[in-house]
């Protein structure tokens, strides 16, 4: 059954829900058209799945469209994605031409209906070509870390970027010199989704048994797509150091996303690295495995997210929400979520991750304390109710450009 705003009141309190209804009074009946590149897989699709119905319940006419693209297009946009996050990629003329041609095809097929058009990430960026003079506002919602983008890719996308009326980034350091307002909005998780709601201990145990994971021995887990920037090989290196001191298992679990063709290559390398150790469980989960992911995290002793680049890192948010001690790479949004030593530990290397994992495995009180702090941190800052509020504020901000203080009656 779809969740309703009322269902969140038990978690966030009546005041938060009342506040959303008040704010909604100022943006009701606006058409908010979201456009991204995949209907399933990855944080953006997950957020939109929950965000769109909640906005609609509040009276905002929110919709969600997905651009089309073939494997070659998504190979190009994956390279763009990596390059915008600072990794060197060879971008050929053919690749730029593929991006242009697919954008052109989507320009023909996409029906722009929103009063506000919300373009998520770089893949659909070129749709702004459809922008005309008038009241329609175009917003680029960039979910990735563009603090040090590869200039070739940034420059090639610049003719699109500079046409937007506003942009949204997840962290202050992702801001760029842009000719339009830039807002900061942290992403969020839905506490009532299958990935995050409470589970019975038996449900957790069933999933561990299904994947031949021993519930009686400590479990280190990283949940993420198989992506170099998530450093799964670094996690295996850390685990091998931990194993010298502690008996434990490692779970590396993730799904694929239709806009991430590189995943298969990374998965193969991870499987090769893990082949000689039966205590390393490499799990390629099918789409819609959210309850299994939920159970894997809840069944874990320590959760890792040892990314070397990260837009925000919602897997960290999800683990903190489940009161898990989390070890995270000190990058991107992970630094906002993990208050070092309070809600988890920030690390810069496999060795650092191993050292903190050993510390946490030896100290259940510390794990419990950090887990409780992490839960509170997410409750205060990273739930979807706050995200809905921020999106409505951005819609309002678009109607009051240049005003630092907006008085609403």
């Amino acid at each position, binding site marked *: 059954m779809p969740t309703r705003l009322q269902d969140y009141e038990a978690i966030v309190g009546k*005041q938060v829900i009342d*506040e959303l209804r*008040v*704010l909604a009074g100022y943006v009701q009946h606006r058409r908010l058209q979201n456009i991204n590149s995949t209907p399933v897989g990855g944080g953006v699709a997950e957020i939109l799945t929950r965000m769109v119905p909640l906005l609609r319940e509040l009276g905002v006419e929110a919709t969600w469209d997905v651009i089309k693209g073939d494997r070659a297009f998504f190979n190009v946009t994956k390279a763009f994605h990596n390059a915008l996050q600072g990794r060197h990629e060879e971008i050929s003329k053919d690749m730029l031409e593929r991006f242009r041609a697919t954008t052109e095809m989507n320009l023909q097929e996409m029906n722009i209906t929103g009063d506000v058009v919300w373009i998520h990430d770089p893949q659909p960026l070129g749709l702004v070509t459809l922008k005309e003079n008038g009241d329609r506002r175009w917003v680029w919602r960039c979910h990735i870390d563009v*603090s040090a983008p590869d200039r070739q890719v940034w420059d090639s996308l610049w003719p699109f970027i500079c046409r937007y009326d506003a942009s949204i*980034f997840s962290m*202050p*350091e*992702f*801001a*760029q*010199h*842009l000719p339009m*307002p*830039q*807002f*900061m909005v942290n992403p969020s998780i839905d506490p009532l989704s299958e990935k995050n709601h409470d589970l019975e201990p038996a449900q957790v145990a069933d999933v561990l048994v299904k994947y031949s994971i021993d519930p009686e021995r400590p479990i280190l887990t990283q949940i993420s797509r198989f992506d170099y920037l998530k450093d799964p090989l670094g996690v295996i290196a850390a685990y091998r150091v931990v194993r010298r001191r502690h008996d434990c298992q490692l779970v590396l679990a993730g799904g694929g996303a239709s806009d991430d063709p590189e995943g298969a290559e990374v998965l193969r390398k991870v499987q090769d690295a893990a082949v000689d150790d039966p205590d390393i469980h490499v799990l390629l989960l099918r789409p819609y495995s959210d309850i299994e992911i939920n159970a894997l995290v809840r069944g874990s002793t320590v959760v890792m997210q040892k990314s070397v680049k990260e837009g925000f890192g919602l897997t960290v948010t999800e683990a903190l929400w489940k009161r898990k001690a989390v070890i995270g790479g000190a990058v991107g949004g992970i630094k906002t979520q993990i*208050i070092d030593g*309070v809600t988890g530990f920030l690390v810069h290397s496999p060795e650092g991750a191993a050292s903190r994992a050993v510390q946490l495995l030896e100290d259940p009180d510390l794990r419990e304390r950090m887990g409780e*702090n992490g839960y*509170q*941190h997410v409750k*205060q*800052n990273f739930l979807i109710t706050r995200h809905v*509020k*921020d999106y409505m*504020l*951005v819609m*309002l*901000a678009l109607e009051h450009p240049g*005003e*630092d*203080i*907006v*008085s*609403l*009656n």
Partner: protein
Amino acid sequence: MNQVQPFRFFTERRLVELTGLSARNLPELATILHTVSGSSVFYHTHHEFLAHHFEKPVVYNDFAVWVREALQEDALAERLAAVDLLAFTTIRQLREAILSLIESCMQSRNRDSRECLPDDEFHFCKSKSFILPTGIVAQDPSDFFAKLPGITTSSLYFHFLEARLRLGRPTNDFSHWLASQGQLQLSHAIDQLDPYRLTLDELKDDLIQLGSKYGVC
């Protein structure tokens, strides 16, 4: 406000706007601080008061925290943290006070300013605030204190911190209105509260106690 006007409680909702400007050292911090909007100065000296904290922070001022943690300029950090926000009635004055401390520190140096590590830059943000009516209205001082317990911390923040400094009002809104209602002593007592030394919940408790002490509730 005159004697017949009721008190209308407002609240504020804030969106963080990014400027794209960042500093790596004190000269860059000072240069940018000269030019950013007052909303940026206000944001970096006030936003932590509304944030959830696991422990009450000693320092709320972003400039002080960055100078200490990224540049290891401890003496300057202490001076910045000690800037008395109640001493100013405009952001312009506050900006000048902060700049004066930074520039004095730079002038007293016989070495180049330290540079922060990559990824530790100070990123200038600013507040875009939306002021909304709460629908809660007090007809007289007694009614005001009856309704005060139901006021959110965001509403308190607006009337006590934001309205005074950002909208250039001479005192907090509560003191101003209570004075107009003839409650001069109570108005003065509230004006003496230091909201920067209290959490917003503590501030609310103190306000309620003052109302009780002066026989208004």
